[in-house]
């Protein structure tokens, strides 16, 4: 198929335009596509990052410079002590610089995470074996505690006593480990 504009080069850009419900197809070469504004070169495509960074900015300090100088509750400039990434840079690129950034920007993260992850802010999945440390025990204990409440409600006291003993043994393990760490 040849280009509809120059009739010289092959058409490699195919577009479907819908204007006022009227559908039309355009087949042009790359050069003509650029010249006629069908392709935006030089400008990056609007990416997920742009969207994200828009979200972050809305959580950041007010963009009105004149006002923010007088603002009482202006937050100090946040900067990650480990990698040096500032909150402004994070908002611009939409990416964290290192693991510590999560701690540094912690206060401002919940609204962002909520929007990206359908309202969720807390991890509820896998815990790594080594890095997870005592989390495995803690999680197990939480499960036993829920179980214990259920058993008591159902008045199954014999079972409940067994579960209570398990919780006690886990608790002592946990204390033991934490002492050992110090």
């Amino acid at each position, binding site marked *: 198929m040849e280009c509809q504009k120059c009739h010289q080069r092959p058409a490699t850009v195919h577009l479907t335009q819908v204007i006022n419900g009227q559908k039309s197809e355009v087949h042009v070469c790359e050069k003509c596509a650029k010249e006629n504004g069908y392709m935006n070169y030089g400008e990056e495509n609007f990416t*997920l990052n742009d969207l994200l960074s828009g979200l972050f900015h809305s959580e950041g300090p007010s963009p009105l410079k004149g006002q923010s100088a007088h603002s009482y509750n202006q937050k100090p400039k946040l900067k990650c002590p480990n990698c040096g*990434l500032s909150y402004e840079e994070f908002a611009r690129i939409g990416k964290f610089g290192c693991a510590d950034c999560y701690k540094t920007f912690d206060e401002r993260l919940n609204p962002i995470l909520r929007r990206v992850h359908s309202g969720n802010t807390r991890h509820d999945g*896998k815990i790594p074996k080594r890095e997870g440390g005592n989390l495995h025990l803690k999680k197990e204990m939480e499960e036993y505690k829920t179980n214990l409440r259920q058993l008591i409600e159902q008045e199954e006291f014999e079972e409940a006593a067994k579960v209570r003993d398990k919780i006690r043994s886990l608790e002592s393990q946990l204390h033991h480990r934490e002492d050992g760490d110090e």
Partner: protein
Amino acid sequence: MSLQQFMNEAISPWMKQEGPDSDIVLSSRIRLARNFSQHPFPIIASEETLNKVLEFFQEEFQKKSFRDYKDFELVQMKDLQPIEKRVLVEKHLISPHLAEKADKSASLISQNEQVSIMINEEDHIRIQLYFPSFQLDQALEQASQLDDWLEEKVDYAFDEKRGYLTACPTNVGTGMRASVMMHLPALSMTNQINRMTPAINQLGLVVRGIYGEGSEALGNIYQISNQITLGKSEEDIVEDLHSVVKQLIEQERKAREALMTRSSIQLEDRIFRSYGVLTNSRIIESKEAAKCLSDLRLGIDLGFIDHIPRTILNELMVLTQPGFLQQYANSTLSPDERDVRRASLIRERLQLENEE
């Protein structure tokens, strides 16, 4: 040399196996994003840091094996020609993002190409594990074990509240993206897929065409994956995806049956016309090739054509991409030249089946 093997075969060894629902589901994939706790993320890390990460993998994992995933080969981006990178992207062994990064990044690929661990992509580590057909649970189980194997050596960036810490806030938590590649010709033909997409999106899942730009799905191949990574366990995410894919399979089967009862002769006509185009054309654009290959595959699934293996769609969809065409031609080709090459390659490949 192993790189040569990755380059020469269009379909990875694992793709040749059939499995549950393999008439509709082409493959299942689990991707896990992980980072070192002590190093800045690749996006701002110094050359020195990136080098450290790379060397660590070279020393600890080069030529190592884990279960079925044998002889991991560290393929460094700096050693690859542009066409070679493109081939690896077309085989989904590396991401386009990794291919763009000039050096200090690599991919650790297992002999059977089922596992590729990308290094210094957006995150330090991106584990990818593929299974043929609809085997998400197995993929998750294996990926998780592989993850444990890496964790024996790597200090992961992990936080009790936020989970696995990633460069992008869209991946934090499980760091997991589970996806399923599906061939949905009947749902596409009847335009039902476009009506189902919004409902699927509401469940926190995304539907997109895997080849081609934007909403258009080249070859009627769609990828369904999870969007949310925080606040749900890996198992729950996979279960949600599983149930939606199950329904899509059912709907696709129903749509195929309906087409068969209502317009069997039209369907047969369409399939054999496409077969005719594939076996006879001298010039074919990728769009037309994809459409005809999808028809051919449907013809095989419905029993109209029985001398060609099902994997022809997977194989030729990869083989007729620009990177592979140029790899075979051993030179760079203009779009026109590619269309000619593509046509002759498809003809030769189908001729092979006729002879057997």
